[in-house]
């Protein structure tokens, strides 16, 4: 296959994206039932980044993420059962019902936790990389964050330290051009986010975050650099969120973002781009996709059923896990 990506890899990327998409589509359908009582920040439209980055990672590598982390956790290997149960606030949830959608955890799969404070995860990922460097255990850490996080002091402090110590960490900025409803140009001067890397003495790469092959390719180098002691990299992937900042609805009619902009990005759906390519390359048929969809839907059915049948935490446990 072209671009140095083999069919097998492309298929795995597609499968991961599809799992994320179908899971979140299910959240969209279930949410109005008002049983998933926590704010959900959906990544529909942005799946290629989670998939493209995480495919390079080993189980024991660390990822850290934000309020918008379903995709990253699924791509890193979190099971759909504990994920769904967490959204439903059950004690079988990945964070035992304490975290909800914004605080997902799976230490066995390299997910020590996610934080919904913008920019909060960046220095924490750097610290995990420091641990890896000190323990010489070969692990690397990835921080996923949005374009909004670039404005926070934590971005600056985190990148400065990572570069100073040549830590094995990759900064993955998912630039969807908005922080809530605030456009990037209302918050930042006109500088490519990736170009800020130079100020920290580290390489920066920008490109199409809806092209999973581009994501995967550009991340490979960053992973190699991190693993070989070459230090951190800043990756900026441009993409677009299809749903409102929070919740399952569209925000286009409400005038939050221009409809034309939205439509242009929907035409560039990361799954479509990848799926069409697989079909063109004859690596996949429409039927294959249907079958795959069916099996993932069944997995989701199972996860939701598991969640719904799981117990809630007991009120008497209110002080558990504080320390």
């Amino acid at each position, binding site marked *: 296959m072209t671009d140095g990506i083999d069919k097998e890899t492309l298929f795995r990327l597609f499968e991961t994206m599809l799992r994320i998409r179908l899971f979140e589509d299910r959240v969209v359908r279930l949410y109005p039932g008002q049983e998933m009582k*926590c704010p959900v920040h959906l990544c529909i439209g942005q799946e290629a980044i989670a998939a493209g980055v995480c495919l390079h990672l080993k189980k024991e590598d660390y990822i850290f993420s934000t309020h918008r982390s379903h995709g990253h956790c699924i791509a890193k290997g979190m099971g759909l059962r504990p994920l769904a149960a967490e959204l439903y606030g059950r004690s079988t949830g990945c964070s035992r*019902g*304490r975290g*909800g959608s914004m605080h997902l955890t799976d230490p066995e799969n390299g997910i020590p936790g996610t934080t919904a*404070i913008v920019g909060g995860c960046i220095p924490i990922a750097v610290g995990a990389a420091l641990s890896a460097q000190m323990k010489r255990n070969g692990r690397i850490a990835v921080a996923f964050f949005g374009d*909004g996080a670039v404005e*926070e002091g934590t971005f600056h402090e985190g990148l400065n330290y990572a570069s100073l110590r040549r830590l094995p960490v990759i900064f993955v900025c998912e630039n969807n051009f908005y*922080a*809530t409803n605030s456009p990037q140009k209302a*918050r930042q001067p006109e500088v490519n986010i990736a170009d800020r890397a130079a100020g920290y003495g580290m390489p920066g790469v920008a490109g199409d975050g809806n092209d999973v092959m581009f994501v995967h390719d550009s991340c490979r180098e960053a992973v190699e650099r991190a693993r070989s002691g070459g230090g951190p990299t800043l990756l900026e992937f441009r993409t677009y969120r299809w749903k409102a900042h929070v919740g399952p609805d569209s925000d286009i009619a409400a005038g939050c973002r221009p409809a034309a902009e939205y439509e242009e990005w929907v035409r560039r759906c990361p799954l479509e781009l990848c799926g069409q390519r697989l079909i063109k390359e004859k690596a996949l048929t429409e039927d294959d996709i249907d079958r795959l969809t069916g099996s993932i839907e069944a997995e989701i059915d199972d996860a939701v059923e598991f969640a719904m049948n799981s117990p809630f935490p007991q009120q008497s446990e209110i002080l558990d896990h504080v320390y």
Partner: protein
Amino acid sequence: MPWTRIQADDSRRPGIFRSSHAVREISYRDAIREALSQALSMDPDVFLIGEGIDDPGGVFGTTKGLREVFGSERVMDSPIAENGMTGVAIGAAVAGMRPVLIHMRVDFLPMSMDQLINHAAKWSYMTGGRVKAPLTIRAIIGRGWGSAAQHSQSLQALFAHIPGLRVLMPASPYDAKGLLLGSIASDSPTVVIEHRWLYDQKEGVPEEAYIIPAGRGTIRREGTDISIVASSYMVYEALRAADELGKKGISAEVVDLRSVFPLDEELIIASVRKTGRLIVADTGWRSCGVSAEVAAVAAEKAHAGLKAPVRRICLPPAPTPASPALEQAYYPTFQQIAAAAGEIL
């Protein structure tokens, strides 16, 4: 300075809401928007700034439409950079402006504690009073829907510990307007904490601008058997608890602090001396919280009048859980207040 022309209203209105200033009932949300709109109209030095405050939602409606009227030069969006933007607001304030910095949630203020505590709160003192930082910070607290540990805190105590800051927690629309205008008019940095569950509350609110000064509480309901001192949303729970207790023939007095720093110690002491019993109901945590301060004031200054142990109704000492099952255990309600009253009567 248009601010000296606004009438100060320091009445300590008794009674429940909706009873007075009868002309016109508006919501807490609209009272806030009206205060902002009047401040912007009266004084060209006033401006609003905050993350997404000019977006269609308009901070739960409290800034809605203001950019259209006053322009994006005075109703400004902001980068996501809480400490830096607090510094920017301080700098504008020491250079002659009266910024109102708006945060969707108080949980983001820990990002800006350096500029708040080390700079805003100390600027007047460090300059020997020669330079003031007339800065108002609006921050919102709330309850529920699995907002979880980082989007649900009620951090008034952190600010109320710091001399140089003032901390206000309006419970009613009337107070929301008057306290907010008062803080914009004041030369000192003030944190105004609003509760999301109050935005739809309505009350008679005068159309003209008026100011309620910091440091003045109010009696929401007179009573003789027990004092319930509360603020913000807990005033409502306290009033409901008083209703419950009333059914049992117990007469509870409900004190609304309005200002948690400085405290209206006189009002607290007088109420406790009258009733001999004290419950403090706060939206935040217990340890070193506002409830601790109120209880301590009673122990210091109304000791002789206290006939029973003080009770505090606060959040349990844990971060906020996401699960609705745990949220129910987490947030105290009028039942707990009434039960606590039962224990000490």
